């Protein structure tokens, strides 16, 4: 069965500092990997996705993520965090013609 682990429930980052959110997955085949963001009272919005090819993927809002097969990881990064990035971030794993399995999320707090 597929699963996703986001080890950090909460992370606080100073505005302008760099960010890395961790995601580890368990999946039997080559996974499709996703990061979604959820602002308070909103639905989830896709930040980026990895299907195959280049292991470093770029997304919206200046985010990027790197797929590392050897570590079963797909960590999300941003070089300089803005106050508007405060939200909850979800990593998800799936495959072609399968449903997505989501992690429990990481809440990002941005301090001035």
């Amino acid at each position: 069965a597929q699963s996703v682990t986001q080890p950090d429930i909460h992370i606080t980052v100073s505005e302008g500092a760099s960010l890395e959110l961790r995601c580890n997955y368990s999946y039997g085949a080559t996974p499709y990997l996703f990061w979604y963001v959820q602002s308070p009272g909103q639905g989830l919005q896709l930040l980026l996705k990895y299907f195959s090819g280049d292991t470093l993927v770029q997304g919206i809002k200046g985010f990027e993520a790197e797929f590392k097969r050897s570590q079963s990881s797909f960590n999300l990064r941003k070089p300089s965090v803005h106050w508007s990035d405060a939200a909850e971030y979800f990593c998800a794993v799936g495959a072609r013609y399968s449903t997505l399995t989501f992690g429990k999320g990481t809440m990002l707090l941005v301090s001035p």
Partner: protein
Amino acid sequence: GAGVSQSPSNKVTEKGKDVELRCDPISGHTALYWYRQSLGQGLEFLIYFQGNSAPDKSGLPSDRFSAERTGGSVSTLTIQRTQQEDSAVYLCASSLEMAAGELFFGEGSRLTVL
């Protein structure tokens, strides 16, 4: 519509009552998904539809939960004899096809069972 629409946005009900939650997907999206989001639990998959059929109902937590989709469009999630543990945000998403592509989410229906 422009996005996935869910109603009601908030629902407060008494234990034992039935509730219906509605999802109107993006026009032309053939796949539709229901997830449940509880505090600190992430997103729990409930059911998905491809067209009007539901190949995978494995996530429905009990037989009190059911869902249908008509005309390949609107879906209704029904919870019978609600319990306090059913309190959560119910999220609906749709996609062009069931191919692990991008899911477009609605803003959710927050259910509170007193």
